[in-house]
């Protein structure tokens, strides 16, 4: 009896273990990739939720591209060096964020148009700078990242960024929420509005630069916006949305890495595809305004 009880589940569990656990147990690069992706999800999810609620999703996208020329200049000067590309990326990201803000504030051009202009410009500039020196392999590295080759210092950078992000969001939570809901009220009770906005933009750039090392400039923003967009379909409470977005980020990182391992797909796109799949499922099934609930809401209530 006892023999049966232990033997039967063992048979079923073994392939599951092989499928989900073994790649991470056997290969250190998979462990590192998982740690890196979890770090990105912890910071990127909540930042993405705020970006979405502040109607700045496009800003996030544009800033992700804006990082490229900065990182590319770093690369041009120092090769594939972590500090050079990080500093270059941060620098470029901040410049574009501020420039787009100024253009929209002082000219007739709306912010989305000026952002589109800046992001196209930076993408073209970045690709040009990288190809000045590097090979196509390096270009792919910059555009799509190297999540399967994260070294100690990169992991440390990702962990520091997500720690700083979570702490900063905890401190800035009230003014951030208030600035989205009722900016006039915030201005009437406090001067925290503008500094809060600037620090928040700084957090966005930081997280994008972190994501850039793992997922590349084109996909980094995916770990921000897709979990955030998915979370909106599961909750109408912002705290809950941030937790859901982190969970979505971690799950898509985990399943994306497995997908890439077993199906021999490139890891970065596999992670973003997983996040995209979760988004689509949420869009259809999500309890808060998912398509299925819209199509079959059930009969109306009495009151």
């Amino acid at each position, binding site marked *: 009896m006892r023999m049966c009880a232990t033997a039967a589940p063992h048979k079923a569990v073994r392939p599951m273990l092989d499928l989900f656990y073994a790649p991470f147990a056997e290969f250190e690069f998979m462990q590192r990739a998982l740690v890196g992706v979890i770090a990105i999800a912890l910071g990127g999810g909540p930042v993405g939720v705020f970006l979405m*609620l502040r109607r700045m999703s496009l800003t996030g996208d544009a800033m992700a591209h804006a990082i490229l020329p900065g990182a590319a200049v770093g690369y041009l000067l120092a090769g594939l060096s972590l500090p050079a590309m990080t500093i270059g990326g941060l620098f470029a990201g901040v410049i574009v964020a501020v420039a787009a803000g100024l253009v929209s504030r002082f000219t007739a051009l709306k912010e989305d148009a000026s952002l589109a202009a800046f992001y196209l410009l930076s993408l073209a500039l970045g690709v040009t700078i990288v190809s000045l020196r590097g090979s196509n392999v390096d270009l792919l590295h910059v555009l799509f990242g190297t999540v399967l080759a994260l070294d100690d210092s990169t992991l440390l950078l990702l962990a520091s960024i997500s720690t700083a992000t979570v702490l900063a969001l905890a401190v800035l939570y009230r003014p951030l929420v208030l600035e989205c809901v009722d900016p006039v009220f915030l201005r009437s009770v406090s001067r925290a509005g503008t500094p809060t906005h600037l620090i928040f933009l700084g957090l966005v750039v930081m997280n994008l630069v972190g994501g850039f090392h793992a997922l590349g400039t084109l996909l980094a923003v995916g770990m921000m916006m897709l979990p955030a967009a998915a979370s909106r379909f599961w909750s109408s409470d912002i705290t809950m*949305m941030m937790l859901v977005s982190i969970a979505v980020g971690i799950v898509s990182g985990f399943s994306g890495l497995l997908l890439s391992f077993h199906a021999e797909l490139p890891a970065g796109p596999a992670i973003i595809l997983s996040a995209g799949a979760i988004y689509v499922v949420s869009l259809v099934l999500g309890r808060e305004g998912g398509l299925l609930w819209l199509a079959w809401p059930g009969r109306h209530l009495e009151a």
Partner: protein
Amino acid sequence: MALASTVIRFDEVTLGYGRRPAVHHLDGEIPAGSLMAVVGPNGAGKSTLLKGIVGTLKPLDGHIRLKGPASGIAYLPQAAEIDRSFPLSVYDLVAMGLWTRSGLFGGIARRDRTRIEEALSAVGLIGFERRPISTLSGGQMQRALFARLLLQDAPVILLDEPFTAIDAKTTADLLDLVRRWHDESRTVVAVLHDLDMVRRTFPHTLLIAREPVAWGETGEVLSPENLLKARRMVEAHDPHADVCHRSAA
């Protein structure tokens, strides 16, 4: 009123956008504890005046002097400015009224929770605590905003068209709160369009049509002649307007 001190003083104040005046040469003062209506046609500069008092708009000319800090002013702008789609509960919206006490990250003590509940009950929103603000009707939203004003506990309260598009029952309830603030000797300034309401409830009135037309006891200010004068205000900009040389004394 003789003993009351001034909370807001206008010295030849001109407020406007670009160089165009929206409030032209306003001079006078609002005594502490007064209940004052600001009345005038659309485009007369009523909202602009409130923005000037709160400090979001700097005067083109003259000075607005406040007694006490600007944080002692609770300001309810016209309804449109709140993002109603934001996932926020009624409770959290109302609790923001505690900002001046709790600031950026001060905690909300148990006593504060009681005060939030009292405010919700005062505006008749008990049972709405967990509702997202996106599900509120216009009147319910205004009740929630009044609850937030209650919590702000400010000595000066500015209301910009608080009863526009609000039904009679809600208006009556919220007007009771305005009277309560007056009884607690807070200063209340409200931009209003309903002249009957002004006559019934507000002892003082400023009638403004870009230029101040009359300011004082409501009964005298809202005379037929004054109202006619206010109605004659020219709304269009004069493209050939000269520079104003009236002295800012």
